[in-house]
């Protein structure tokens, strides 16, 4: 069996329901998952631990999602960021992609859509290793 280390995923959304819904699904799919509803705590965490994928909301209290993702990309450019937001506009999407975001998913989304996005990250990494 494939015994590669599990991909580490960090999920940040200030609405607990989003984290609660996503965590079990990601774990079932074989990922190591940490969830945060507080952006400052999430920021602390990315400073001590590298993640393969960061999934973040954009509009949050305290640190805004756009700033958070900039921090992530600055610290570990290899971390792929997926933005999830209920305030999707062309401008935010454009700005996200300019900041090197891997994918942009508008809420509400199907669980399979977000899992697919993470799987694409996985494939990209596998291809890069080959």
């Amino acid at each position, binding site marked *: 069996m494939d015994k590669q280390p599990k991909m580490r995923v960090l999920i940040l959304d200030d609405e607990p329901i989003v984290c609660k819904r996503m965590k*079990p699904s990601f774990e079932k799919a*074989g990922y190591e998952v940490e969830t945060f509803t507080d952006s400052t705590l999430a920021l602390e965490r990315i400073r001590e631990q590298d993640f393969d994928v960061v999934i973040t909301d954009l509009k949050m209290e305290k640190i805004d999602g756009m700033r958070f993702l900039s921090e992530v990309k600055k610290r570990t450019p290899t971390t792929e960021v997926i933005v999830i937001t*209920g305030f999707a506009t062309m401008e935010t999407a454009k700005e996200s992609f300019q900041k090197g975001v891997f994918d942009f998913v508008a809420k509400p989304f199907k*669980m399979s859509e977000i899992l697919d996005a993470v799987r694409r990250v996985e494939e990209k990494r596998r291809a890069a290793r080959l």
Partner: protein
Amino acid sequence: MNGLWARICGTFSRWRRREPRVPLARILKCFRSILARNSEILDLMATMGKALSGDYVFDSHFVHSSCQRLIDLTQSLIHDLNILSGQKYVDLYASLEGIRRRLDAILAGQPSIGDIPYTLFYEDCNRDWIDEVGGKNANLGEVRNVLALPTPDGFVITTRAYHEFMASAGLSDFLTQQLNPWETQDTQALEQRLRDLQRRIEASSIPEKLAREIYHRIETLGRKYRRETLFFAVRSSASGEDTEHSFAGLHRSLLNVPETEVLQAYRQVVASLFTLQAWRYRRDKGFGEHEAAMAVGCQLMVDAVVSGVLYTVDPTAPPHSDALTVSATWGLGPPVVEGNRKVDRFRVSRDPPHALLQMHVVPKTASLISQRDGGTQWVDVSEVDQSRSCLNSQQLNLLASTGLLLERYFKRPQDIEWAFDTSGQLIILQTRPLQINLSDSDICRISDITASAPVLWSGRGDVVQRGIAVGKAFVVQSDEDLKRVPADAIVVARESSPRLAALFRHVRGVITDVGSPLGHMATVAREFRVPTVVNTEIATQLIHTGDPLTLDATQNVLYRGYIKELSYHELTYEEVFEETYEYRLLRRLLRLITPLHLVDPKGTDFTPAGCRTLHDIVRFVHERAVAELVGMNLASFHTSGCQIRLLEIPVPLDLRVIDADGGTVASPDARTLRLQDVTSIPMRAFLAGVVESNLWERTPVAMDFKSFLASMSRTFDTHRVPLEEVGLNLAVVSSNYMNINLRIGYHFNIIDAYVDDRIDDNYIYFRFIGGVTDLTRRSRRARLIGEILDRTGFRVEIRGDLVVGRMKKRPRSTMEHNLGMLGALVAYTRQLDVQMISDEEVVRHVERFMELFRSLWPRPQAAEPQGGSHGQAT
């Protein structure tokens, strides 16, 4: 004669009242805007409805903003209708305001106080009322009203009654002043104060209006059961009790209380909210003291022969030990619940036929029974019964299957109190989640197990209800098969159908080839929370009866074989989506949004005041908007630029046409339009289908001329026939646009299309609803139309008897071809629901129509891809 005169006067005054104010261009703009908003509203409603399936991740922002958007759109809709009609429907603003206020109250988490009664019969009780009736009563309401299992009859005294009682006794202040703050260090002093509070509660009188209501409930039950005195089990059901927090044994419940003593028992149960243990439990579990409230259940006493407790998972063994446990004794249940006496114990297999794995029968010398005049007493058990098992295998089997039904529904292992009464009936007294914790290693194992399990497919179709189902497949091919579906099967069917709905109570999962995530069956799947996936396209080809399957409708993966670990994972680890605040919020809101009550435009309630939901308003506005435009034709006067003309076509379709901009070439004086006068590209294509396809003549409905007229009502002189008898058939056209509204009897059909040589702007929107026959036949016709649309490349949604088909961004030739097809389809299906007597008819008519149409009208050269269209025509 007088009637005719009055009508002429009425028409004239209506015309005078309205005519000069709004130019036609403005009216048509309003009409188009109504149509556009109508579609947007229906789309948004559909999105919100789909969110309940569990397949979507959404947050409260989505719920709030969607509601706001719906209200804004509906407001604009009403505004446009009023411009179009000369302010005839201003009452709609009041209807909307009423709904908006209730939606706002729900969004703010405060159901308006008028909605909460002091008492509620169990038949009206469900989880929507969880804050008012407490967790225990809410669960019991679901067991009774959704799963239709026997539970004791009775009523609930709600938390509103509790707050009223505490306030009238002057105890609300006592609570805030004497007992707060929480962090009282001095236990003795706190205990003293709590005892004092309990004494005061027990001595306080109950407000008269509350007492009156309680006695009224008792009287109603007395009449129903024709008994002189009723005896009740008066049970606690505090806020949060029997949810993820059990509060087990902390609050009081009193058995066999005579009706005359219910009020006193009520006070005692309320007082038990303030024992030191209950107080500490709340503090430890993080409940705010303002959240503490006691609802009380008053249940008719069950004449129990044997009572006990069932755990659907053995809490002492690993969660996947595949056994459930039963404890039981003769008489009433407290000896089992309190655990201070020896009782019979059984371990039973969770898998059907639920074999007995282990049995431990003890001598039972005494049993607790109801006394004649109230209260309970211990009596000796006969020698024969002392040493024999108090449950037989049949009873154990029923307990096991019922317990697992409850577990599947509540998505958690259950701790169930039950009794068999003197008639041998199993009665559920209460059910609550049994907390079992999975270890981290179990969670890790899940991904390893699923990674190596054979996957039949992944991400196929639409999830209608999330969840895990493990069981044997049963492929349903005919109506006869429906009767043979074993309990605990995973049903596989060609299409979703209301007839499958009858199976939902017992089956583990449902998979279909085709179907809608919003149809009637979907509603039932969600009601029973049965994992269901539709539109997989290939299920009946890949799966055979007897195949072992695991359907993970949460990740949307279907595995071959049994993966029980997945169900245990769901039962013990994942948050129960249906119990989340956001789910309950959305469900509550949707009750004021999506149900459609105004189905009959001729009904007496088809008024602004009759609009109970946003959907009602939307329907009303649309119907009236069309009627207003058609009404202008009746008034007909040659007003400047107003060209509303009857179309002369060789089929009996009474269609009036408004030319908004270059859609026709008739002379300005002409009162009627000939076919060749129509130049609108989409309209020409549609009419070609209606007329040239010849299907009007070939329609398979045998009808006499009279009923034919009644349904189609071609009016030979529109001025003499009242509007309501002619049907409201109206087309608004311009050179590249058409909007057709057909109302034939109860059928209601809209086709909105734009066709141009520029591919990007092209679209067709087709919407069909209604019929005069029963829902099943209408649904069959909906399926027929849906299937034909699907085959011709439309993106299709079916909800009950509503069909919506959409197509976008195809070349002009394809759009014209498909508009012709729609014309032929309208001709073919206008009375077809009468014939939809079986599912075979659906298939027969689909084939017949496709064949006739293809032979008459071959596809254009630049044909589109073959087959289904999902995802293409977005």
